[in-house]
C-alpha cells in the first residue's frame, strides 16, 4: 500500500494538467436558468484550462464524441463536466473518457442541475454566479485527482436463500435452473411459508396448495438445491462473492432419510399441542408432520411438549419409538452446524400478520367470534380445522351475517402507518369464498375506508364481489361489543348514506395487515441489511434498485422488503434471482476503487474506524515492530462502500477515501473561498 501511495505522489509531482471544461444545457433544465455561455467563458479563464465548451445534451452521442475528440486533439488529461447529478451520468462520462484513452477516474462532475438551476430557478443571475463558483471548485479539484483501476475478485458460485416461502422457493428454482448451487434455509420444519396456509388466491381463485405444492416438490427434488429446514443462519462473514456462512440445523429427533411421513407416530402420541400451521385453531401432537402437504414430509418432535425430551428420562413414554416401522425416531439427535462458502444471498424471510390483540376496540382475542383474516384462511381451507366449512367458532353454526373490517393495524399511526397492500383483496376474496361456500343465506358486509384494487384483474374481482351481493359499508366501526350468545354488534357511520348504522354480526373477520417478520432485526444484524422507517428491509433505491440491499451481494425478495401479494412476490423473487445470476455468472466481480486506504505509517491502531464502519469493512491486523506488536487497520476492499465515515473519524488522518483526500477537498474549499475573499 505504501508503495502505491508513493507512486501516486510521484505522479502528482510530475504532472501538468490539461483541463477540458464542458457545460451542459440539459435542454432548458440548466440553460433556462444558468447563462451557460458566461459560465463557459469564465471557465476558459481558469488556470490550466485548455478548452471550454457548452452543448445542448452533453450525455448524448454527439456530446460524448465531442469530449472524446477533444481529449485526443488537445491532449487533455483532466475533464470537468458541468451537468446533472453524478448519480445520473457519472458512469456515462467515465466510460466515454475511458474510450478516448483517459483514466475514467480523472473526470469531475459539477452538478449544475440539482444544485443550481432547479433550486435557484427564480434567481438566474445568482444561479450563474453559483455555477461559476462550482466550476472553479471542480477545476481546482480535478487537478489533484489520481488515476485509479477497478479490481477484480473471483466469486463463489453458491447462493444462500434465506426463507422458504413462495419468494424463497421461486428464487431458489430460478437460480438452480440457471446452474447455481442453492442452499435454501427455512426455520420451520417445512417450506411453503404463508402461501401454504392460504385457501385460494385472488384474483383467479386458484387453490393455493394446487399451485404451490408442485413448486415445493420441485425444490426438494432439484439436484442443485440443498434444502435445510428447521435451520437458521447464525453468522455471516466475508464480502460480496465470498461469504462464509454458518447455519444451525436444529434436531428434528426424526431422521429425515428414514421417515416416510406415514404419521402413525402422531396417532399414538399422547401429548396435544396447539397446531401452528392452523393458527392454533386446532391441536396436533408433540410428534407430527408440519402440514398435510409439508416438504419434506418428515415428522418432527416438539421438544417443549414431548414427555421424554422434557423429562430427559429414557423410560418415559416412547410410544412413537415403538410404533415407527421405519425406525426413524432418534431422541439422541443433536443440532448441527453447517459451514458454507457463498457468493450471493437472497433474503426472503417474508412478513408476519398483524396481531390485533394489541388493539382493544375490536375485541380480538377476547371475543371468540372475532377472527383474523389468516385464521379465516385456515377455517376456509379444506385441510383446515373445520374441513373447509366456514363456521362460527362459538356456535359451530354457519354464520348468518359476516362482516369484514378493513385496515386493521394498517393506515393507523398507532400501529403501522403504511397500507398493507393486500387487506382489501384478501377480504374481497374471503367474502367471495364465503358467498360461494355458504350461498345466499349469509349477509356479507365489508366495512372499508378506501377500497384498493390496483393489480391486474383486481378491479374486475371487486366488481365480481359486488355482483355477488357483497355489501360495502363506507366507514369503520369505533368498537365492537358482544352479546351473551357470542354474537356481535356495533355502530358504524356510513358516509354513502350519511347514516349511523347499527350492525349485528355472528362472525367478524379483521383484515389484519402485514408487519415485518419477527426475525427482521436478526437479519438486519447478520447481513447488514438496513431497514426503512416502516421496519421492513430497505432497498438500495426505491425505483431503480428495488431488488437489492445497499450492501453488495445481498438481494431482497418478497414481503421482507414491504407488504406484497403473491404475484408481486414471485416477480420480485425471479428478479432477485436474475440479479444474483448477473452478479456471479462471470465468476469474478469488479470492485469500485473508490475505497478507504490506510497510511500504515500514520495508523496508531486506535480502532475508531473499526467501531464506526457500518459495513464491517475494517479489520485490525497485528504487526511485528521493533518494540513488540502493533495493531494496524486494514480495509477489506470488497466490503468497503466508500462512505467516508472512517476518514472523518480517524484522529491521525491515516485513513482516507480515494478521490476524497484531504488535499483534494481543501483545494475545493480554497477555490470556493477565493472569490469571496476578493481574489480570483
Amino acid at each position, binding site marked *: 500500500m505504501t508503495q502505491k501511495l508513493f507512486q501516486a505522489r510521484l505522479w502528482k509531482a510530475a504532472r501538468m494538467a490539461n483541463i477540458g471544461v464542458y457545460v451542459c444545457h440539459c435542454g432548458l433544465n440548466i440553460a433556462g436558468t444558468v447563462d451557460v455561455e458566461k459560465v463557459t467563458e469564465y471557465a476558459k479563464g481558469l488556470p490550466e484550462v485548455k478548452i471550454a465548451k457548452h452543448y445542448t445534451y452533453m450525455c448524448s452521442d454527439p456530446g460524448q464524441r465531442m469530449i472524446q475528440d477533444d481529449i485526443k486533439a488537445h491532449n487533455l488529461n483532466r475533464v470537468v463536466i458541468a451537468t446533472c447529478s453524478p448519480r445520473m451520468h457519472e458512469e456515462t462520462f467515465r466510460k466515454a473518457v475511458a474510450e478516448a484513452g483517459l483514466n475514467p477516474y480523472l473526470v469531475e462532475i459539477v452538478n449544475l442541475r440539482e444544485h443550481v438551476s432547479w433550486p435557484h430557478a427564480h434567481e438566474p443571475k445568482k444561479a450563474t454566479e453559483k455555477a461559476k463558483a462550482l466550476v472553479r471548485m471542480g477545476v481546482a479539484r480535478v487537478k489533484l485527482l489520481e488515476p485509479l483501476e477497478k479490481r477484480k475478485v473471483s466469486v463463489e458460485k453458491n447462493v444462500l436463500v434465506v426463507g422458504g416461502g413462495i419468494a424463497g422457493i421461486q428464487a431458489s428454482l430460478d437460480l438452480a435452473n440457471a446452474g447455481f448451487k442453492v442452499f435454501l434455509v427455512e426455520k420451520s420444519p417445512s417450506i411453503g411459508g404463508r402461501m401454504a396456509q392460504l385457501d385460494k388466491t385472488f384474483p383467479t381463485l386458484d387453490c393455493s396448495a394446487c399451485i404451490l405444492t408442485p413448486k415445493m416438490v420441485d425444490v426438494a427434488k432439484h439436484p442443485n438445491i440443498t434444502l435445510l429446514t428447521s435451520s437458521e443462519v447464525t453468522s455471516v462473514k466475508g464480502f460480496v462473492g465470498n461469504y462464509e456462512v454458518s447455519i444451525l440445523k436444529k434436531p428434528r429427533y426424526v431422521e429425515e432419510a428414514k421417515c416416510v411421513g406415514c404419521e402413525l407416530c402422531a396417532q399414538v402420541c399422547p401429548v396435544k399441542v396447539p397446531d401452528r400451521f392452523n393458527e392454533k385453531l386446532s391441536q396436533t401432537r408433540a410428534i407430527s408432520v408440519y402440514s398435510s402437504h409439508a416438504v419434506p414430509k418428515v415428522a418432527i418432535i416438539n421438544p417443549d411438549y414431548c414427555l421424554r425430551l422434557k423429562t430427559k428420562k429414557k423410560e418415559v413414554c416412547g410410544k412413537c419409538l415403538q410404533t415407527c416401522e421405519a425406525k426413524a425416531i432418534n431422541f439422541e439427535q443433536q443440532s448441527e452446524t453447517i459451514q458454507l462458502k457463498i457468493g450471493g444471498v437472497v433474503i426472503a424471510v417474508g412478513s408476519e400478520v398483524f396481531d390485533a390483540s394489541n388493539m382493544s376496540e375490536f375485541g380480538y382475542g377476547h371475543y371468540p367470534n372475532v377472527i383474523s383474516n389468516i385464521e379465516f384462511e385456515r377455517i376456509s381451507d379444506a385441510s383446515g380445522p373445520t374441513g373447509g366449512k366456514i363456521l362460527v367458532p362459538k356456535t359451530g353454526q354457519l354464520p*348468518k351475517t359476516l362482516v369484514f373490517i378493513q385496515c386493521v393495524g394498517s393506515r393507523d399511526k398507532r400501529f403501522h402507518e403504511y397500507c398493507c397492500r393486500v387487506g382489501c383483496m384478501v377480504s374481497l376474496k374471503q367474502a367471495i369464498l364465503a358467498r360461494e361456500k355458504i350461498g345466499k343465506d349469509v349477509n356479507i358486509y365489508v366495512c372499508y375506508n378506501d*377500497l384498493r384494487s390496483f393489480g391486474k384483474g383486481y378491479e374486475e374481482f371487486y*366488481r365480481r364481489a359486488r355482483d355477488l351481493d357483497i355489501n360495502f359499508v363506507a366507514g369503520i366501526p369505533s368498537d365492537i361489543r358482544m352479546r351473551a350468545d357470542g354474537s356481535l354488534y356495533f355502530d358504524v357511520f*356510513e358516509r*354513502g348514506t350519511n347514516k349511523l348504522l347499527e*350492525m349485528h354480526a355472528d362472525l367478524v373477520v379483521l383484515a389484519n395487515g402485514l408487519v415485518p417478520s419477527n426475525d427482521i432485526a436478526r437479519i438486519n444484524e447478520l447481513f447488514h441489511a438496513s431497514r426503512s422507517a416502516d421496519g421492513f428491509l430497505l432497498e438500495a433505491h426505491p425505483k431503480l434498485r428495488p431488488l437489492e440491499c445497499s450492501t453488495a451481494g445481498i438481494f431482497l425478495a418478497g414481503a421482507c422488503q414491504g407488504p406484497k401479494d403473491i404475484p408481486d412476490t414471485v416477480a420480485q423473487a425471479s428478479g432477485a434471482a436474475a440479479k444474483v445470476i448477473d452478479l456471479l455468472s462471470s465468476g469474478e466481480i469488479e470492485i469500485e476503487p473508490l475505497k478507504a486506504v490506510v497510511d500504515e505509517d500514520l495508523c496508531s491502531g486506535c480502532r475508531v474506524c473499526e467501531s464506526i464502519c457500518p459495513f464491517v469493512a475494517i479489520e485490525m491486523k497485528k504487526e511485528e515492530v521493533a518494540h513488540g506488536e502493533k495493531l494496524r487497520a486494514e480495509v477489506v476492499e470488497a466490503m468497503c462502500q466508500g462512505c467516508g465515515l472512517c476518514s472523518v473519524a480517524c484522529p491521525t488522518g491515516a485513513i482516507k477515501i480515494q478521490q476524497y483526500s484531504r488535499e483534494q477537498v481543501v483545494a475545493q474549499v480554497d477555490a470556493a473561498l477565493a472569490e469571496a475573499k476578493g481574489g480570483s
Partner: protein
Amino acid sequence: MSLVDSMSMAKPNLETREKILAKLKGRELVNCFQCMKCTSGCTALKFLELKPHEIEKLVNLGLVDELASSDIIWTCVTCLKCVQRCPQKASPYHVIIALRNLAVEREAKVPEEFMKAVSRILETGLAESFQDIVSRKMETFDREGLGLPKICFPKESFQAVFMKALEER
C-alpha cells in the same frame, strides 16, 4: 337482522331490495361504488333531501321501505344525466323509477302534481296543459289568437291502451 338505521330504527327489507334489483336490467345497482358522480351532476339536487348516491346506497343496503313511501323519489326530473355518466352503469335513475313503481304498487301517496300530470296525459296526451300567453302590454293570447293550428286530442282508443298498460303494471 344484521343492520339497523340508528336514527329511524328502520331495518333492511331484503325481499323488496331483491324486487327492485329484479326490475333493473342486470341487477346493476350492486355495482355502485359510491363515486358520487350522479350527485355532482344532478339537475334536481336543490330540491332533494336525499342525494342520488344516498338513495342508491340505501337501496343497496336494503333500507327501501322508507324511501318507497317518501316524496323524495318523485323529485327526479328524469334528465338522464346520471344514466349517461355513471362509470358502473348503475345510475340511480333506474332505481328511482323502480322505487316509484313500487310506491304505486303499494298504493303509497303519490304527489298531487304527479297525479294531475297523469290524468292530463290520459285526457290530452300531454303532460302539461295549455296556457295562454301574456304579452308585455299585458294582452292575453290563446293558440287561436296567435294563428296556431288546433291541437288534436287523443282518441278513446289511446285511453283504453293507456289504462290497460297501467293495470298490467
